[in-house]
């Protein structure tokens, strides 16, 4: 009785289903479209060097967008990631140059691995502050992370009095050399940053799909009250997503400082907006409950390729902003249309089923 109506509904809903499939794959289609467009319109676009350069640009936004995706799926927002990037870059730069002065005549210098771990811990810690503000003190995510945005940026500027930490090569006698590896190093021909992105993205995608925590992230975003009654530890889930977002931002801070071999306190300004754009372009719903890591990565690539390609074509940066904005708006409009079509197809199938 249950499978007969399902079969009967297939032919009638076929045209709707095809359109639906196209719409669901829209970000991917958009990616292929921009790739084809720029390979024709921009010379050298498809050269290996350019592709690798572009993926390094994309990787930075992709990290932030992944963290943002989880946050948005739970129904929140994290505006502080750009500032965390800046602050974490400064932490890493400070530790390479100055170490920690113990005030008793000794100064501890950490090796590069330790510095990276400390920086990541700082990112996670700031994420935890966001999480605590939101879960314990009931501050709205927008406000809590807005506040942290300012505080973290202020701290970054205070750390150097607004100056850049230059020349982070370190000293071999202190064991602080090798900081450039993250930004400039290569493994099997691919930049280290790309490898890290692959690892983190696979881990995040696995987490979303195959772990209770991942399932709970979606449940909290879909219906927080129902999740609570079902025994989901809503506060823990929220703590996790903001800490993960802070972790991703710290990675970006490390990579940028390492690429430039310098830390500038204004690094990462307005990065949060690009991250939100990538997540939304990848099909993450701002009202929570929907989104995928894969979609977000593709979204980050669309945005990244679009801006790099336009630069290569010599389009003015003012027009770039307009185009980026339009792409985001179109993406969301198509998303809404897909929802409506989907519910229509479902209703049609149900009507057929009686």
């Amino acid at each position, binding site marked *: 009785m249950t499978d007969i109506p399902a079969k009967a509904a297939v032919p009638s809903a076929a045209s709707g289903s095809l359109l639906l499939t196209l719409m669901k794959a829209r970000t991917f289609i958009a990616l292929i479209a921009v790739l084809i467009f720029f390979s024709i319109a921009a010379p050298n676009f498809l050269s290996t060097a350019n592709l690798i350069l572009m993926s390094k640009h994309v990787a930075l936004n992709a990290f932030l967008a992944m963290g943002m995706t989880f946050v948005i799926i739970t129904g929140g927002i994290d505006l502080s990631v750009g500032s965390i990037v800046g602050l974490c870059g400064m932490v890493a730069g400070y530790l390479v140059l100055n170490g920690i002065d113990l005030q008793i005549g000794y100064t501890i210098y950490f090796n590069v691995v330790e510095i990276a771990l400390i920086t990541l811990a700082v990112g996670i810690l700031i994420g935890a502050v966001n999480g605590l503000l939101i879960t314990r003190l009931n501050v709205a995510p927008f406000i809590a992370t807005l506040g942290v945005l300012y505080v973290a940026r202020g701290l970054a500027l205070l750390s150097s009095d607004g100056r850049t930490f230059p020349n982070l090569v370190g000293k071999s006698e202190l064991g602080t050399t090798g900081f450039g590896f993250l930004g400039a190093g290569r493994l099997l021909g691919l930049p280290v940053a790309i490898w890290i992105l692959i690892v983190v993205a696979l881990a995040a995608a696995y987490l979303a799909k195959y772990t209770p925590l991942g399932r709970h992230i979606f449940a909290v975003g879909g219906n927080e009250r129902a999740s609570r009654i*079902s025994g*989901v530890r809503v506060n823990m889930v929220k703590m996790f997503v903001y800490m993960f977002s802070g972790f991703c931002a710290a990675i970006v801070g490390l990579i940028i400082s390492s690429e430039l071999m310098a830390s500038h306190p204004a690094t990462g300004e307005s990065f949060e907006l690009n991250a939100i754009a990538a997540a939304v372009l990848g099909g993450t719903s701002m009202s929570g*409950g929907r989104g995928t890591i894969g979609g977000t990565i593709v979204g980050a690539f669309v945005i990244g390729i679009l801006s790099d390609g336009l630069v290569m074509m010599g389009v003015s940066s003012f027009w770039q902003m307009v185009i980026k904005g339009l792409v985001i708006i179109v993406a969301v409009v198509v998303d809404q249309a897909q929802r409506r079509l989907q519910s229509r197809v479902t209703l049609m199938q149900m009507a057929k089923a009686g």
Partner: protein
Amino acid sequence: MSTVANHDVILKLEDVSKVYSGTVAVKRANFEVRKGAVNVLVGENGAGKSTLMKIIAGVEQPTAGRILLEGEDVSFASSGDAVNRGIGMVFQELNLFGNLTVAENIFATREITNRFRKIDRKEQERRAAQFLERLQAGIRPDILVEDLRIGQQQLVEIAKAVSLDARILIMDEPTSALSAAEVEILFKVIADLKARGVAIVYISHRLEELIRIGDYITVLRDGHITGQEEMKNVDTRWIVRQMIGSDAKDFAKADGHVPGEEIFRAEDICLSRATGGLAVDHVSLSLRAGEILGIYGLMGAGRSELFDCIMGRHGRATGTIFIAGKRVKERDTTRRIRRGLALIPEDRQREGLVSILSVASNLTLASLSRFVRLFHIRGGPERQAVVQMVRELAIKVADPAQEVSSLSGGNQQKVVIGKALLTGPKVLLMDEPSRGIDVGAKADVFRTMRKLSRDGLGILFATSDLDEVMALSDRIAVMSNGKLTGMFDRAEATEAVLVAASALGHGPAPHTENTAHD
């Protein structure tokens, strides 16, 4: 049907149907509303009364059929349209803005302005005070609605509807949170409106109330209108017969198994209200394995709040609970579920389901840890559990990967029950488990309850449906105003004693005979 000359038909629904995704709420209903009379509408939960009224008030649009207002074909695109044609409604769910004052609520969308288009606050408050005076509510028009108790809010809602100066006034369970004295005042206001020729549509569950004030009665069952009569020609028995139908409800029969040891005990549960007073007032009860304990009470009696306390949803609740004789020290929901408690909440959409997730994800949401090795959800066992639960509860779904929101109400309810059962509970708390689901699904749910109790689960279920509580319970507890006001064995429980116990402390006076003589 006899027509009385001075009770002309002002509004007529012809073959009106309303279909939601998944359910047909109203089927080809023909309904007449008469001027200067109280037109009573009665039916069980989910029979379609509220939907029918929302169609008249323009809140919902009919899927098919015609609405005739004084013989003229009309259609209301919004409630504003209906208000303009003189139709006002007192909603069952209060539709008030808690952050605005009483006067601002009464004149919302019809603000009184002066020459400069500025709201004339003084005038609004003066007129609001007049309407409130008629209801003898003793409510100041300049205080915030959120600071009023629920009963007072209901009076504001009524004052708002009266202030519309409507020709047709719909009241959807206006007395559900009123005290006996307030109900008397409301009835005086209704008599007054009636005398001025207003057509009143009155919905209530309280049969004694209906018989007292009604002039015409219409009975709805499962979206069909099953009877339309003048009130003077009918009695309670007729109403009940039309409501339930000749085929008595399919309550799975008791199988006569004997309950076992005590499995759950609650002692001295208290929960304070935000507005002062106690929502749950020193409630103690115990439950045996394999026993179904029904908790009967009116809306706002504290049944849902009691369940919330037991599940650990309120940090400020006091009292102790025991499972199988052992004290439950855990205070949070997560760990109480692990100890063997599970709740099926009253509001499926808001608290039961994550509507954008699949049927399968919803079913296993509360019990994921069962399928996890280290941190990995094993797909095989999870799918197996889902398939088994779908079969056991007869959930009608083609593919468990389907979004749960595409199911009908009854099947959604079964998913909520399945989710609770997958946690392997010892004690199941069910809050209005049959609310808003069709007859077939109801029967399935009741059968499941019987089967679970046979398997040794203790079941606490809250309901405001007398038949349900009488037919399903081994014992019946009655709550009123946060207190436990009665505890009866099935053998000694009669409808009369339950109703009497449920009215202690609030609600209309239990003795209808006395009030009828007033």
